[in-house]
């Protein structure tokens, strides 16, 4: 469990990134911090592995204040995936993945063998092991980034807009892959994004942030969609533009789901054992 207690981050010169943030992140679930630029979401994420130290307040992991831990040991025990994957360009994929275990004293041969298995875990071909990062596509690089973060078998996985730099199709694949991994591994994931749809997809818990790290609303996707706390949340999730208010219309005998602006969002499919609705390919899982 990760707990933020009245955390504040004020930079010299007076810029306030986070005013007063409190939140509890339960273990073995995915929590998504979502907000626009300047909401302090990355700052908050980095407080967990002490890449940023709070100016006031505490961050606790399993009731231990991270400020009392050794920075380097803490970071090695937490997986971290960043947007541009942050791979070392002069090392092969395999060596990139094996970096942290080798730092913590795993024998080289063992670490590299484990790295091969991890590549498979994240859905990469073992044959890519000897390539250099620049020889991979953006999506593949991102998968290597995830494999590296998992290499030390951490309980906590921090992900800072990990899928921000890849195209929408690859992003979709990576999101699905992450969900599959999470259902197998059950890590405590803290995920930062500015994409609310990604947040609703990934997060067991979604925390919507206002500028300055103020919590606008926290809850499950369903809770937030059902009862947006205020105008800000409504705007953020697109409810004010009618994106979330879906209704059925019938066209050419097919039931189409249409959003508040009148745009088709998808096709209504029959639930299993419901013969009332004819089958049709889902265009979009809205």
């Amino acid at each position, binding site marked *: 469990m990760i707990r933020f207690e009245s955390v504040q981050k004020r930079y010299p010169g007076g810029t306030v990134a986070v005013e007063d943030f409190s939140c509890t992140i339960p273990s073995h679930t995915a929590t998504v911090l979502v907000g626009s630029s300047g909401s302090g979401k990355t700052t908050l994420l980095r407080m967990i592995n002490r*890449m940023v130290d709070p100016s006031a307040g505490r961050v606790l992991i399993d009731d231990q204040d991270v400020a009392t831990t050794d920075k380097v040991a803490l970071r*090695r025990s937490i997986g971290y995936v*960043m947007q541009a994957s*942050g791979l070392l*360009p*002069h090392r092969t994929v395999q060596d990139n993945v094996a970096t942290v275990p080798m730092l913590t004293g795993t024998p080289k041969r063992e670490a590299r063998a484990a790295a091969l298995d991890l590549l498979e875990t994240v859905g990469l071909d073992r044959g890519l092991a000897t390539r*250099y990062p620049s020889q991979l596509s953006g999506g593949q690089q991102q998968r290597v980034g995830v494999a590296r973060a998992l290499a030390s078998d951490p309980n906590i996985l921090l992900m800072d807009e990990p899928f921000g730099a890849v195209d929408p199709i690859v992003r979709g694949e990576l999101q699905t892959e992450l969900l599959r991994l999470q259902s197998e591994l059950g890590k405590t994931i803290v995920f930062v994004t500015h994409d609310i749809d990604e947040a609703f997809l990934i997060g067991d818990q979604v925390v919507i942030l206002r500028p300055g790290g103020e919590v606008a609303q926290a809850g499950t996707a369903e809770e937030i969609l059902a009862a947006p706390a205020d105008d800000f949340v409504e705007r953020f999730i697109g409810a004010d533009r009618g994106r979330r208010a879906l209704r059925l219309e019938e066209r050419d005998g097919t039931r189409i789901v249409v959003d508040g602006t009148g745009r088709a969002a998808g096709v209504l499919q029959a639930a299993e054992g419901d013969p009332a609705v004819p089958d049709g390919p889902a265009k979009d899982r809205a």
Partner: protein
Amino acid sequence: MSTNSSSATQVLFDAPGPKGRRRILLLSVLSVLGIAGLIGAGLWQFAVNGQLDAAKWLPYLRRDYIAFLGEGLWGTLRATAVAAVIAFPFALVLALARLAPLRPLSWAATAWIEFFRGIPMLLVVYAFLLALPAYGVTFDRFWMLVVPMILVSSATTAEVFRAGIRAVDRGQHEAAAAIGLMPRQSMVSVILPQAVRLVLPSLVLALVSLLKDSTLGFVVSYNELQFQGKNMVSITRFLVQTYLVVSGIYIVINLLLTRVALVLDARMQKRAAQG
């Protein structure tokens, strides 16, 4: 890297139209004719004065002539190699010291670098030849040339390394920190390997300039190529021929070094470096 810069040039450089191309062609032809004319006039003057006589050129194929200049060439290469082997690692140390978070260390390194970068190498050589012996500090000829080469070259090369270190993407520092590398580990195993690759071509250029610096060996009577050439002139009186041959040798060596730089650069592009 090269694709980026070439596309940048394309943005800045407007491709010439038909008129422009014609003008460029005309000017090119004219300048080639001009240069050829100058060379021709020079050769004609040489011929008139008998400088192109076979008797004045054939001796350079003689074994003793080759041995004489070869001794100079060996001296040049030895001084350059020794200076480079000491100067480049020392330059890296200076660059790291200048970037160190410890202020006094950084200031000291900066002062050292700026001092030796700013003064002409000839002055340093004179210091070793004239000033230091007055205080009882003497070196043999080889070191009287090589130590100044090291001092000056390490200062300029330190700045090359510093530029390389700073050119490594900021994200790499963050990534290194995020996976739990200590500052020193991240410098040694993440930043430096990338920085050295970035500056490899510039290092070869530094080597070329080091090679040319070794010509100051004549000041301390060290037997490097140019000094041997000078000696040869005083014996044979073949001034024009000797210096042309000596220049030719320097140009060939530097062309070879530049080729090495190109090959290294190409290999670097092909491999990683741009992650």
